[in-house]
């Protein structure tokens, strides 16, 4: 049994623009990892490629030992590899409950629908209160909760969160961080993209720093650098 998710030498981009260059990342069973790095350097592109929204030009992606390179998004969801995308606007004209129910449309998620729904409302009681409200009328924080809730409705075996606290107030950010911690403790392996390295270190075992579509540094929680050297790493090397 190899790794849960194994990304090996993947190259991908948009048309003639190459964004990811021979990137290799792995997640082991029961592990949470973090991705960080300056804006526009390929973190979202990597998640889109893993989810099958972008077809890699080279390399191999496997999940639970099965090759999923170039597979259809539907089949990847069916395998339990789920993503809550960045800045998600979901389905503006659909109600919260309708959206959550729809999110369990995949074959593997259908069975656990009622239990997952209970779990989502336990995790985000606010969503329960707004169950018949249209998604477009939700606040930014509530939208983020709905997006994570949808991902949970898919019964994830691995959950990728792309900047779950983007643009939220410090208070809301803390609340969502708490919820993400809850999900991690419930045993769902996570891949979290975030700019806040300390936040990532509190939730994950390992961090990858991504710059120019490559992993330029791997950080273990056990020997994580202190705050100052992280800041230096970030701003010292990122600014051109």
């Amino acid at each position, binding site marked *: 049994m190899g790794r849960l998710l194994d990304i090996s030498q993947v190259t991908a981009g948009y048309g003639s623009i190459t964004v990811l260059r021979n990137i290799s990342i792995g997640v082991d069973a029961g592990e949470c990892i973090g991705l960080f790095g300056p804006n526009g350097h390929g973190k979202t592109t990597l998640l889109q490629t893993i989810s099958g929204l972008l077809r890699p030009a080279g390399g191999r992606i496997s999940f639970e030992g099965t090759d999923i390179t170039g597979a259809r998004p539907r089949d990847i969801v069916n395998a339990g590899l789920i993503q809550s995308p960045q800045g*998600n606007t979901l*389905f503006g004209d659909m109600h919260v409950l309708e959206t959550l129910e729809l999110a369990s449309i*995949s074959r593997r998620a259908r069975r656990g629908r009622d239990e997952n729904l209970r779990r989502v409302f336990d995790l985000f009681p606010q969503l329960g209160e707004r169950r018949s409200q249209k998604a477009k009328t939700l606040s930014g924080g509530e939208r983020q909760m709905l997006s994570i809730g949808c991902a949970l409705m898919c019964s994830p075996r691995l959950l990728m969160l792309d900047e779950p606290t983007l643009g939220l107030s410090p208070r809301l950010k803390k609340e969502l961080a708490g919820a993400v911690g809850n999900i991690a403790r419930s045993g769902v392996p996570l891949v979290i993209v975030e700019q806040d390295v300390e936040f990532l270190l509190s939730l994950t075992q390992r961090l990858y720093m991504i710059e120019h579509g490559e992993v330029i540094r791997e950080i273990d929680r056990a020997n994580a650098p202190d705050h100052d050297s992280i800041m230096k790493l970030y701003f010292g090397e990122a600014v051109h």
Partner: protein
Amino acid sequence: MIDTLIATLVSGLVLGSLYAMMASGLSVIWTTLGVFNFAHGALMMIGAFVAWTVSEAAGLGLLVGIASGTLAAALLGVLIERLLVRPYYGNRNMLLITVMTTLAAMIILEKGAQMIWGARLKQLPRLVDGEISIFGATISAHEAILVVLAPLILLSIWRFTVRTNVGRSLRAVGQNQRSAALIGIDVPVAFAIAFGLSAALAGLTGALLGSIRFITPSMGAEPLVKAMIVVIFGGLGSLGATAGAAYIIGIIEALLILWLGLYWTPFVLFLMMIVVLVFRPTGIFGSSQ
């Protein structure tokens, strides 16, 4: 006087039912894919011809004929999506390109029908014989069936899109393709279902209309234009608005025919459409944002 008015309103109701069934098909495709299908009227015509072939030429009976016409149109709709629309997904000019490709499909279907079935006028028998009188205005029982069937069909499509997961997934794909894919909805399948459903509606309408009007290769052109006026008038997107607009246009058309005659009616309808486009581009029922 009152009698003519009632007769006019009733014939407007028949027209409205026809337009509602045609326009709701256009609306299903628009809300799911964001494209406009110009072959919609031609698919209606195919429904009528296939119904005629199965029912009259092969002698299998009208109901089997109507079912075959509906199915044939649905399959052709899926084929059009596959060959003429799908290659352009994600293209910046998709809307414009598909205007041309679906127009091409319309021409191919019309010319094809002319080659297969010839130019001689054909007509289907009626589902039931006899006439029905509503407040003194008489219509054929067949037209009465159309009037009753149209709202039932619209209601079931609406229920389908609101209650069932497949129907909801069509709405989801229309609102956010990426998010839809990420919760496991098969986006290309959703597109095919939308086209198939829409084309089935067109085919069924054609098969039912084949008993009232003559079946010709160009019989779909006029209903398509009217359905376009309806969706512009009602605002694209909501099925309820489309249905409401269909009945309003049907009744206005009947009244215009009464007052101005057949010659000037299309002119006034188009004028109305332009006025709506200028002053309320999102349609009479559309939100004004």
